């Protein structure tokens, strides 16, 4: 048996031999049975009847001889009758023996018959002799040898027949023994063959099969490089191993293809980021063109913008082929046949249902070559901004994945163009706004300057007037002058606050952050408002715990504290208190709170508190001076520092303004 043979053939051969062995055993047994049957047959139909016939013959003759002798001695006629019975039975007995005898037996029977006939001839003479005569006695003497001869021949035949029966029986026994031995050997052979075949089959199947299962397990476990031995084991298992390897190779190919697709996806996604990252439309388009050429292996890439798309180069191609190269004709074709979301593929018209490129476009494609042409609409929102055309020279078709990716890039390009445009417009807007803002600041500066000069004269002369002796002026006039002075001061504060607000909002008052100690600032501000508080009989308290360093603009923070404190003092009636709290809030924030026991702000008006020129109705009612810009300035500064401001107030109870500033 060859090692690389098939198990089927092995089994077929083994079973063939087994069947042969079984047949042999059967044949041997059948032969034995037949031979034995024949032996028995011969014994029962020939040898034994012949023996019987021989014995009968002897009996007949013995009866005749005994009866005759008895007659001769006694003269008894009855005995002579017996002789005659035997004499008449003799021919039949001889005939029986003759019929049964064959070959040498026939001769023996004939010889016996001849002797018997010889005796009979003598016996006939004897019979006629008078009984008990001398002649009779002579005849007895002469007849005796003849009879003895007959008996001898009869005994010879009997003997030879017995020998033959013994030989037959011996042969049958020997054949039986031989058959048993042969069948035993054949059975042993068959059993051995079956055992060997079973073992070999098992060994030849289980080994390679186990290895194959091992390989399959490794494959299932993620070892994609594992392969089954294709020349191991019987042909059936080799066929299975080959099938397994084929499947594994196929899976490898599929995996590799999937890997390629995933890589393409990743590249396209990266490309999308890059396209959308560009702030200049032209750069975005160029990025798309170059990226597509690399990622999707396009030999020609052309981007045509639809008519009316401003701020974008109308045509862009990979190697500027649209100027004089093969894309010149295509560059001249309008892309207006494409709607947003359309795709057209030359070698797969089925995928482009409903998209009908004009004849000029088709001719332009033909001018580029025989390569497959993929055209994708570049869309920004629902609007078709233009067309993206990809061409391969080698004629390899665009796979569905590539088509899909080209669509993705086209969508990114659309978005990129859209964003870049928006950005450019925004830049223009910002520049314009900055110009406007500068103009506004300039205007505010000029206005405030122009307002200040006449205000200087008014305030100056007012001071001169009020400095004169009270006798000359009179009380009524002095009161009037004081009203003018108060309003002059208010006008001046308004101008200052407006200018400040304008500068802070325009960013001209840039916050220059420095390490600031909040408690020190609070102390300074308190010292500054202390005279006003003393004058109004308002108590000042501080609750500042520890050093509170933070990054802030000290001047602006001071302005915040001054505004809040002077407000609190201004709106608090005599004998009231103003409390400043400075504390840390978590690790990242500092909280500055100014609480007063003043008139409070009506709840309905608290929302409007930070609106410019807004003043609470109760403050106006009580004629408390103010510009209505203070809290707007505070809010703006706090916002610029990235902080929050909160006001809690109850009318006639008091107000707490809480500023929360980040430490950094």
């Amino acid at each position: 048996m060859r090692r690389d043979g098939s198990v089927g053939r092995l089994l077929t051969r083994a079973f063939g031999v087994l069947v042969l062995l079984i047949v042999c055993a059967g044949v041997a047994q059948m032969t034995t049975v037949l031979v034995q049957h024949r032996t028995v047959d011969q014994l029962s139909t020939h040898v034994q009847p012949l023996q019987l016939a021989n014995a009968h013959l002897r009996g007949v003759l013995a009866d005749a001889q005994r009866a005759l002798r008895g007659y001769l001695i006694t003269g008894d006629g009855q005995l002579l009758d017996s002789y005659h019975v035997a004499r008449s039975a003799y021919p039949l007995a001889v005939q029986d023996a003759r019929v049964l005898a064959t070959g040498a037996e026939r001769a023996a029977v004939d010889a016996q018959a001849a002797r018997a006939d010889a005796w009979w001839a003598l016996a006939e003479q004897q019979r006629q002799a008078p009984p008990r005569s001398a002649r009779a006695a002579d005849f007895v003497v002469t007849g005796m040898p003849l009879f003895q001869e007959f008996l001898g021949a009869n005994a010879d035949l009997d003997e030879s027949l017995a020998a033959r029966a013994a030989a037959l029986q011996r042969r049958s026994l020997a054949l039986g023994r031989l058959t048993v031995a042969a069948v035993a050997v054949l059975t042993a052979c068959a059993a051995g063959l079956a055992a060997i075949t079973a073992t070999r089959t098992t060994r030849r199947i289980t080994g390679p099969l186990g290895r194959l299962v091992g390989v399959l397990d490794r494959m299932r476990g993620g070892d994609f490089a594992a392969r089954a031995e294709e020349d191991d084991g019987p042909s059936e298992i080799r066929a299975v191993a080959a099938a397994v390897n084929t499947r594994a190779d196929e899976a490898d190919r599929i995996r590799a293809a999937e890997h390629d697709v995933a890589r393409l996806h990743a590249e396209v996604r990266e490309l999308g980021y890059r396209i959308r990252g560009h702030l200049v439309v032209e750069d975005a388009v160029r990025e798309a063109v170059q990226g597509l050429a690399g990622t999707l292996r396009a030999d020609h890439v052309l981007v045509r913008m639809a008519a009316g798309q401003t701020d974008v180069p109308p045509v862009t191609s990979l190697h500027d082929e649209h100027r004089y190269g093969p894309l010149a004709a295509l560059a001249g074709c309008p892309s207006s046949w494409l709607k947003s979301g359309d795709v057209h593929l030359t070698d797969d018209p089925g995928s482009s249902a409903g998209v009908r490129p004009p004849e000029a476009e088709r001719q332009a494609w033909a001018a580029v070559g025989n390569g497959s042409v993929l055209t994708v609409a570049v869309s920004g929102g629902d609007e078709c901004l233009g067309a993206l055309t990809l061409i391969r020279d080698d004629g390899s078709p665009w796979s569905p994945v590539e088509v899909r990716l080209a669509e993705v890039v086209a969508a990114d390009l659309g978005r990129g163009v859209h964003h870049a445009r928006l950005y450019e417009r925004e830049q223009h807007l910002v520049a314009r706004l900055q110009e406007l803002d500068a103009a506004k600041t300039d205007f505010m500066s000029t206005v405030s300057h122009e307002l200040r000069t006449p205000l200087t004269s008014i305030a100056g002369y007012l001071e001169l007037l009020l400095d004169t002796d009270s006798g000359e002026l009179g009380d009524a006039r002095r009161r009037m002058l004081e009203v003018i002075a108060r309003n002059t001061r208010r006008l001046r504060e308004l101008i200052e606050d407006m200018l400040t607000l304008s500068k802070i909002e325009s960013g001209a008052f840039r916050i220059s952050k420095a390490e600031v100690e909040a408690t020190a600032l609070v102390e300074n501000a308190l010292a500054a408002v202390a005279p006003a508080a003393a004058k109004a009989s308002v108590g000042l308290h501080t609750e500042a715990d520890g050093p509170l360093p933070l990054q802030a603009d000290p001047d602006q923070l001071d302005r915040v504290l001054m505004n809040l404190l002077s407000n609190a003092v201004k709106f608090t009636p005599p004998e009231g208190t103003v409390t400043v709290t400075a504390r840390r809030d978590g690790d990242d924030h500092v909280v500055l709170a100014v609480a007063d026991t003043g008139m409070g702000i009506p709840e309905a008006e608290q929302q409007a508190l930070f609106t410019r020129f807004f003043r609470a109705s109760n403050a106006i009612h009580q004629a408390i001076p103010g510009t209505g810009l203070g809290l707007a300035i505070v809010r703006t500064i706090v916002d610029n520092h990235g902080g929050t401001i909160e006001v809690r107030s109850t009318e006639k109870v008091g107000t707490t303004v809480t500023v929360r500033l980040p430490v950094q």
Partner: protein
Amino acid sequence: MTVVLVADDDADIRDLVAFKLEQAGLDVVAVEDGQAALEQARIRQPTLAVLDVSMPGLSGIDVCRMLRADPATAGMLIIMLTARVQEQDVEGGFSAGADDYVTKPFSPRELVSRIQALLSRTRA
């Protein structure tokens, strides 16, 4: 008597300042532009000059710089009057050599006290 030069194109302010300074016992020379200020500074050799920053022709800063450049007037005390609070004006004034500056609108009383403070510091 201490001579003080006042230069401002706004007659009202000029008169106001002159009035307050005369009231304070100073000899005031009032002019309405930078050119006249330079001329009067050479002629009268004032101890102190009050210059408005924004004047037509020569600005207060120009006049200040020229006075400092001229050895005859280099030691003069100079106070600038400015309507702007922008840093560049103040810095411009100081870099041109001003001793002090007062922002409009100012209190005449405060101006006088500043002038007297400067004068007394120089005299001492």
